[in-house]
């Protein structure tokens, strides 16, 4: 079982026209719904003849070469005509022709209750902590967590899921499945391939272009029951994922942030327009399974008492450095006790973040 000639031809065509597709920017949807022939006519311009002929000649030799390349890279192919192809994806106006999989392909059939957790690359420590808690909690509950492996929120979602050894984590990449994107995340990539699944729409060796990110986001939204946006600025790609989720009738959740934080402008806007408010893993479980059907694991940290409680409140209120806190009369050793108790984390510059 592998991909059929026709679907592989489509994948080849998208790769061939990748540069032209990039000119469309946010109108990429309008192109992806076109048939192969329409695409060539609409985009290829003076190369139309040449591309058309190459496309016509693609099967069977080109398709066979693509299959060989994929198997050489250890990539499994699942096309639209394959029974393993997730029905949820077929609901897209322009479902991806071939899914390129690195990792265990059997996870593809177990994404029914999956949750997408997406957000800003340039996230704040707050966003990262909330992501770790939500993704970790969902993983323990056995829920698959899907994201895009981007820096920031996306990576944190994968890391938390892997750490918990619970539900699997699935990364949908904007580039080919056989290598890490972003390249700096190859460590994380390796772990996801080993214990989860990496999905790509693109043939091995394809270059990453801007439109690939938008196309990738539609897959993340379509694969899952719920999409959670943790932090998003004005023009964050996470908002694109949220829009796809809404268009597909999937549930949409957002984590509230301070109104003064630029990384929460997008999420607060989502909440205003009716997204579900997400405070932790329990809120997500209630969305998927119904209120009270599944219970997220409870907080097992010993509640801070006395000065440590006051200290935690001061940090929550915005006194975020050890210097500011010791000026306020708090003891450094209490701070260390909170850190050891799993209530706070020290980040760059010594800034302290509360772990929800």
């Amino acid at each position: 079982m592998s991909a059929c000639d026709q679907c592989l031809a489509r994948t080849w065509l998208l790769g061939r026209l990748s540069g032209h597709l990039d000119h469309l920017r946010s109108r990429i949807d309008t192109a992806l719904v076109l048939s192969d022939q329409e695409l060539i006519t609409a985009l290829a311009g003076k190369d139309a003849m040449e591309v058309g002929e190459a496309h016509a000649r693609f099967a069977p030799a080109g398709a066979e070469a693509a299959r060989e390349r994929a198997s050489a890279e250890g990539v499994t192919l699942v096309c639209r005509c394959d029974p393993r192809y997730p029905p949820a994806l077929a609901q897209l106006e322009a479902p991806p022709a071939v899914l390129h999989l690195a990792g265990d392909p059997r996870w593809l059939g177990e994404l029914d209750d999956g949750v997408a957790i997406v957000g800003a690359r340039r996230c704040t420590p707050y966003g990262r902590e909330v992501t770790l808690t939500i993704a970790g909690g969902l993983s323990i509950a056995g829920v698959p967590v899907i994201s895009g492996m981007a820096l920031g929120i996306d990576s944190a979602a994968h890391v938390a899921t892997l750490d918990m050894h619970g539900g699997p984590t699935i990364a949908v990449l904007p580039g080919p499945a056989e290598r890490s994107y972003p390249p700096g995340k190859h460590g994380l990539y390796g772990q996801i391939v080993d214990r989860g699944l990496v999905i790509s729409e693109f043939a091995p060796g394809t270059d990453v272009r801007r439109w690939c990110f938008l196309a990738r986001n539609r897959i993340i939204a379509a694969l899952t029951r719920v999409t959670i946006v943790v932090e998003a600025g004005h023009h964050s790609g996470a908002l694109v994922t949220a829009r796809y989720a809404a268009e597909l009738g999937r549930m949409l959740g957002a984590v509230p942030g301070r109104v003064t934080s630029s990384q929460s402008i997008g999420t607060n806007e989502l909440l205003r327009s009716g997204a579900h408010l997400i405070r932790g893993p329990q809120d997500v479980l209630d969305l998927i399974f119904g209120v009270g059907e599944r219970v997220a694991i409870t907080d097992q940290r010993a509640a801070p008492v006395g000065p440590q409680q006051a200290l935690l409140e001061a940090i929550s209120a915005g006194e975020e450095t050890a210097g500011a806190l010791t000026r306020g009369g708090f003891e450094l050793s209490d701070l260390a006790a909170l850190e050891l108790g799993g209530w706070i984390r020290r980040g760059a510059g010594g800034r302290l973040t509360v772990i929800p």
Partner: protein
Amino acid sequence: MVGLGDVAVRESRERIRSAILNADFEFPQRRITANLAPASLRKAGPGFDAALALAVLAASGQLDPAALVGVAVFGELSLSGEFRDSPGALAVAEGAKRCGLPRLVVPRERAREAALIEGVKVAGVGGLREAVEVLTGERPARAAQPPSGSSPAGEEQPDFADVRGHQLPVRALQIAAAGGHNVMLEGPPGTGKTMLARRLPSILPPLSRPEALEVTRIHSIAGLSAGELIEHRPFRAPHHTISAAGLVGGGNPPRPGEATLAHRGVLFMDEFSEFNRQALEALRQPLEDGYVAIVRGQRALVFPTRVMLVAATNPCPCGFAGTDRCRCGEPELHRHERRLSGPLLDRMDLLVNVERPSAEDLAGAAVTTSAMARDRVLEARERQRHRLRSTALSCNGELDAKLARATVKLEPTADQALTRAYTVGGLSARGRLRVLRVARTIADLERHEQVSEADLLMALMLRQRTGVESANRLGALG
């Protein structure tokens, strides 16, 4: 001129000739052979001029050779016959003493410095004629007196009394001084990292006399001494573009590097992440051993490098991480961490964040004065010396894993906290050792026999970040 001399030695014949003539002596019109023995040892520099000139005078009958018995002479000559100021007189005086020469003639500027060595009578002279008169007894030789002790006025040492705010960094530096720990200061530009580091020598124990002589000798050889006994611990702050040779010593002839000039004092490395990796790598061994051996051809030179290292760095490339002004993303922060995670990070027991002092801080009083802080440091050092008396160590910063196990006793609650930090807090084995060392020093400052839980927690707060971003939040999620 034979005997393995360098260019300066070979050129000295011109200087000697001119100096002898200008001092109203005769230069013999015949072939002269001067032999510098032992011939296998390389000789460098113009310091042999005066001795050679006097030897020529003695050999040509213008000076009674008996006047030169038991006398060492050191100094460069000018063409007019004056003794020029030459670096290294202290080391020469020590050499004279070792060779059993009871008298030493040096340039006048260096007499006091050379007189620091007991058992050598030092005469400081201005010129060749004066040297001859002193040696023959025609002119009374006043034995030079060693510097009285206190450093020259006007060279006031920076004091913690001038510091406003910075409660945490000041406390951390006191701990560092008490235990001999290396420190990393992390903070935005302009918050006072350099200012704080400069004050560290003022709370270190004063130099003992042998230590002061050692430091003075190094600075004398490097040409940095003013001819006085150096009593304050040195503070050296090399620029981050420095080469490996500049940092640990090198070149030919080998010269001491910044690490040696900071011997018994503080080596401050600002913009730590910008230092050349090779230079940092070269510094690792000397920091651990307390000396550096430089081998050139057939000989090896050993320079001492017992320093406290204070490194300073911005928390991120833009410098403002931890504040709302920071514009660095995850990749920039990662790159910065990678640059920092160099060979020396292992040697940093303490990491402290230096923040901008608040307005109230600036208006308020200083946390402490150097004198107060130093008293506590001395007391803590005394406790350490007592505890470590059966070992070769003198402070907690030198403890290795084995000795830490033997000498650092924890209260049960402190032990639990440490175990927890190790098992779920992402503390590494090396990090654990660093925490133990620092906790022991904090307990010494607090006069605790055993390390209390508060001491240990404080040490945990002053350690480097582990970089572990586990979702497991120390078991918060089961």
